[in-house]
């Protein structure tokens, strides 16, 4: 139990020992926490890491072990989507806004973007349909549109209406 997690920590240079792993397992057994990843993150840190200068290494190891479970929010509140949207709409000119309305609004366009991202699994450059770089499709980076759309992590999609 948790042996892989333990060795992932050690691979990332967190100095932790068997004794501490046993403590963690004992804590889980006694149900100090139950089925809560955020609490597990803290509990494992309390028991396994004894120096605040090692917290960074621990965070990296934890993220790599729980890849895909990155829903844990280590940085407080995420950016409010409503706010992002308002900020984006503010940057459009009046006629662009009109065009956006004809296309079915921002929601519709974002839905298309999401659909296309689902369809496309490979990296893509040029062309006129897929999301990628240097193309003419409504989505993608470094395209013909001067404005960029930033969402989630670092996806920059140039918007062309």
């Amino acid at each position, binding site marked *: 139990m948790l042996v892989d997690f333990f060795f992932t920590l050690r691979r990332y240079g967190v100095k932790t020992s068997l004794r501490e792993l046993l403590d963690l397992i004992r804590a889980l057994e006694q149900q100090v926490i139950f089925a809560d990843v955020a609490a597990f993150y803290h*509990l494992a840190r309390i028991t396994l890491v004894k120096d605040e200068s090692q917290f960074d290494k621990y965070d990296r190891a934890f993220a790599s072990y729980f890849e895909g479970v990155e829903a844990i929010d280590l940085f407080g509140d995420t950016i409010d989507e409503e706010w992002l949207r308002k900020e984006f709409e503010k940057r459009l000119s009046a006629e662009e806004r009109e065009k956006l309305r004809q296309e079915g609004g921002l929601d519709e366009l974002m839905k298309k973007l999401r659909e296309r991202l689902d369809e496309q699994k490979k990296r893509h450059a040029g062309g006129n349909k897929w999301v990628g770089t240097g193309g003419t499709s409504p989505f993608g980076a470094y395209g013909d549109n001067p404005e960029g759309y930033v969402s989630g992590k670092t996806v920059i999609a140039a918007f062309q209406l």
Partner: protein
Amino acid sequence: MAFQGTDSYIASNDLQLAVNAAITLERPLLIKGEPGTGKTLLAEELAASLGTDLIQWHIKSTTKAQQGLYEYDAVSRLRDSQLGDDRVHDIGNYIVKGKLWEAFEAEKRPVLLIDEIDKADIEFPNDLLLELDKMEFYVYETQQRIKAAIRPIVVITSNNEKELPDAFLRRCFFHYIKFPTPDEMRQIVEVHFPKIKSRLLEEALTSFFKLRDIPGLKKKPSTSELIDWLKLLVAEDIPPEALQDKEGKTSIPPLYGALLKNEQDIHLFEKLVFMARR
């Protein structure tokens, strides 16, 4: 018995988890953090919320591990022997109990605070390894073994002045108290001053966090300094306007002596304000 902070102490969720894990698994809890973030207070509030005794052992640079267990008072014995006192025949009369012994004998599970363990010699934590692990020790003079009936809740604080030995750290749970965010700070202040004018609080916190952002300060003001400063502001009845920046220029907050404790810091601060005004 889960700890959730008290009416006068705001504990973050991860701190509560650390405390409860330490209580459940009977491990000492090592608390680190900037001075003034409420490390010592945690033990006091924990004892109060559990309704149990707090046994405090404050560590100095001269403290030895043995003093926490017991001391043999040879001088009193010598004097008693010269005066022909009968007590002299029993060495047990001259064994003075230390804080650890006191904690081991308590009837209700007490909170034992070992405050500022980093002040002592590097060997100090190592000398306590077995005692904290097994919660027992041996008195050579009287040949008795003292064992804790109930393992006390041990809270250890450190200001990070010295590295602690690995073997010691492995036996503890560790929590680092982060400096509170402005939101948490607002809660903390409200707990201490329920009736503080909210505008004054707003302005005071803005000045305070700005002051903390000045690069190169030797000792950044912390929560306890903020609370002292607010006490002064309230006592002097300073209007919120006095704390506001005038036309975006930096102004010296009144009574800033409560926030900055270092001569060089005050000079640096005054210089910066002077430059900003020009």
